[in-house]
C-alpha cells in the first residue's frame, strides 16, 4: 500500500514537473506570437475530445489529441485559406468545442459525474498513468529538439512577424508548428489540470516571466521554471487542503503572476519614464 502511494506520488511529482516545464516553455511562444485565443480554443478542443473518449469508452488521450489537432488545423491553415481573421475563427471554435464537450458528457447519462469525467473537468494526480509520464518525457525531448533547431526563426517571429517575413523567413509553417505542439502539450497535460483550466498553465508562467526580463533567452529559461514551481506548489497545496490539483495549480500560478506584476522592475522603470 505504501509502495502504491509512493508510486502515485512519484508519478504525480514527475508529471507536475514535466507538464509545468512544457506548458511554461510553449506559453512563451503562444503569448509572444499573440496566439492566446488559439490556445483557449485548442485546450477546449482537447477537453471536448476527452469528453468524447469517455462517452464512447475510447482512450480519452487519443480522442483529445484528435480534437486538439483538428482545432489546430481549423484555426491555422484552414482559417488562413478561408481568409478568416484569428479572432473570428477562435470565437466560433471556442464555444463550439465547449458545446460539443457538454453534449458528449450528457449523451451517455449513465456516466454522470464519474471520477473519469471529473478528472477531465478539473484534473487529478491519481489519473496520471505511467504511459502519461512516458508521453510527457518523450514530448519534452521532442519539443526541446524542435525549439533548438528552429529557435532563430521563432525568435524573429516573436519579435515581429512582418519583419521576419521581410527578412526571408516563411513564418506560417513555424506558427503552425507552435500551434500544433501547443495542442499536443495541452492534451498530454489535460489529465493533471483538467480541460477547463489547462490554458492557464500556458499563459500564467510566460506572462509572469515577461514581467521581469528584457532578454528573451532569460524568459525562455525562467518561464518553464515558473511553470514547474507553480505545479509543484499547487500539488502540495492540493494535498494539504484536499482540493482539486488543477485548481490549486492555477490559483498558485495566478498568485505568482500577481506578485510578478507587483514586483516587476520593467513596470516600475516604465512608470518612472
Amino acid at each position, binding site marked *: 500500500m505504501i509502495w502504491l502511494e509512493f508510486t502515485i506520488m512519484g508519478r504525480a511529482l514527475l508529471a507536475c514537473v514535466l507538464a509545468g516545464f512544457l506548458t511554461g516553455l510553449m506559453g512563451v511562444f503562444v503569448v509572444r506570437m499573440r496566439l492566446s485565443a488559439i490556445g483557449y480554443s485548442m485546450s477546449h478542443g482537447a477537453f471536448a475530445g476527452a469528453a468524447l473518449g469517455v462517452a464512447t469508452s475510447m482512450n480519452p488521450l487519443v480522442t483529445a489529441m484528435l480534437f486538439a489537432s483538428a482545432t489546430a488545423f481549423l484555426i491555422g491553415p484552414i482559417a488562413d485559406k478561408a481568409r478568416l481573421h484569428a479572432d473570428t475563427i477562435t470565437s466560433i471554435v471556442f464555444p463550439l468545442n465547449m458545446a460539443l464537450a457538454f453534449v458528449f458528457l450528457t449523451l451517455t447519462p449513465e456516466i454522470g459525474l464519474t471520477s473519469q469525467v471529473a478528472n477531465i473537468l478539473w484534473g487529478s494526480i491519481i489519473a496520471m498513468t505511467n504511459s502519461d509520464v512516458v508521453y510527457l518525457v518523450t514530448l519534452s525531448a521532442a519539443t526541446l529538439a524542435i525549439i533548438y533547431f*528552429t529557435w532563430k*526563426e521563432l525568435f*524573429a517571429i516573436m519579435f515581429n512577424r512582418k*519583419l521576419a517575413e*521581410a*527578412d*526571408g523567413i516563411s513564418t506560417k509553417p513555424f506558427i503552425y508548428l507552435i500551434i500544433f505542439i501547443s495542442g499536443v502539450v495541452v492534451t498530454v497535460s489535460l489529465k493533471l489540470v483538467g480541460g477547463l483550466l489547462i490554458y492557464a498553465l500556458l499563459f500564467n508562467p510566460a506572462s509572469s516571466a515577461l514581467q521581469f526580463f528584457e532578454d528573451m533567452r532569460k524568459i525562455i529559461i525562467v518561464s518553464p521554471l515558473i511553470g514547474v514551481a507553480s505545479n509543484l506548489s499547487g500539488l502540495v497545496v492540493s494535498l494539504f487542503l484536499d482540493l482539486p490539483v488543477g485548481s490549486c495549480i492555477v490559483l498558485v500560478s495566478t498568485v505568482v503572476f500577481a506578485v510578478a506584476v507587483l514586483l516587476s522592475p520593467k513596470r516600475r522603470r516604465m512608470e518612472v519614464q
Partner: protein
Amino acid sequence: MDVIIKLEDVSTVYEGENRPAIKDVNLTLERNELVYVVGPNAAGKTTLLETINGLLPLFRGKISVLGLDVLTRGRMVRCEIGYVPQDFMVEPGEPYTALDVVLMGRYGRIGTLHRPEEKDREKAVEAMRLLGVEELADRPMGKLSGGQQQKVMLARAIAKKPKILLLDEPFSNLDPESKEKIPSLIRRLHEENELTTIIVTHDIHNMLKQCHRAIVMINGRILIDGSPEKALATINRSVAFSLEAIQ
C-alpha cells in the same frame, strides 16, 4: 543593361478594399541605381515597396526582382533585400537587445534550421559600427530613442549584405546632424556594393543632393519619373495648385 527590379502594369489592393493602393505602375530599376520616391501621404509609396518585396499580394501585373517572379519566389527575393519599414518603433519592455534586432536581419541569409555563426555576429556589429550605434548593442531595443532605433533598423538592413535596399522614411526620426550624415553613408554603401536602392522620403533636400532619379507618386500612380529637379518642380506645382484650390 542589368535590370534588377521590373514592374509591369502592377496594381495592388489591400485585403477588404476595392480601390487599388497603387495602380498600373510600370517601373524598371537597373543595378546600382538609387531612386528617391516622394509624394503626399497615401500616395502609394509604402505599398510600392511592400509590393516589390512581395509582402503584399499582387492584384494585377507582373513583378520580377533579380530575375525572379516575386509571386512564386518571394522568400528567395526577400533574402536579398534589406528593408526598413516606415515608423517602426519597439515598445519599452520588449525583450530584445539592439544587437538581437540587427542580427535578425541576417536570418534569411543564414538559411532555415541553421544557427547564426560568429561571422554573422561580426557583420551585425560592423553594420552597427557604420551607423554609429555599436555601443548600444546590448541595450534593450525598446529603451532607445526614436533616432537610435531608426539607426539600428538601418544597421539591420545593411548587416544582411543585400543586393537591394528598400528604405521607407528611414531618416524621419534622426537628429539634424544624422540627417546630413546617414543619407551620404547610405549612398556610399550603395555605390561601393553596387546596390539597387529605393528610398521613400519627404526629405526634398536629401533627394536633390543624393540621387539622379526621383519618382513622384500621387493617388497610387507614378506621376513623374525623372531628375530630382523635375520631381521638385512637380511637387511645387501640385502644392501651389492645392493652395489655390484651398483659397
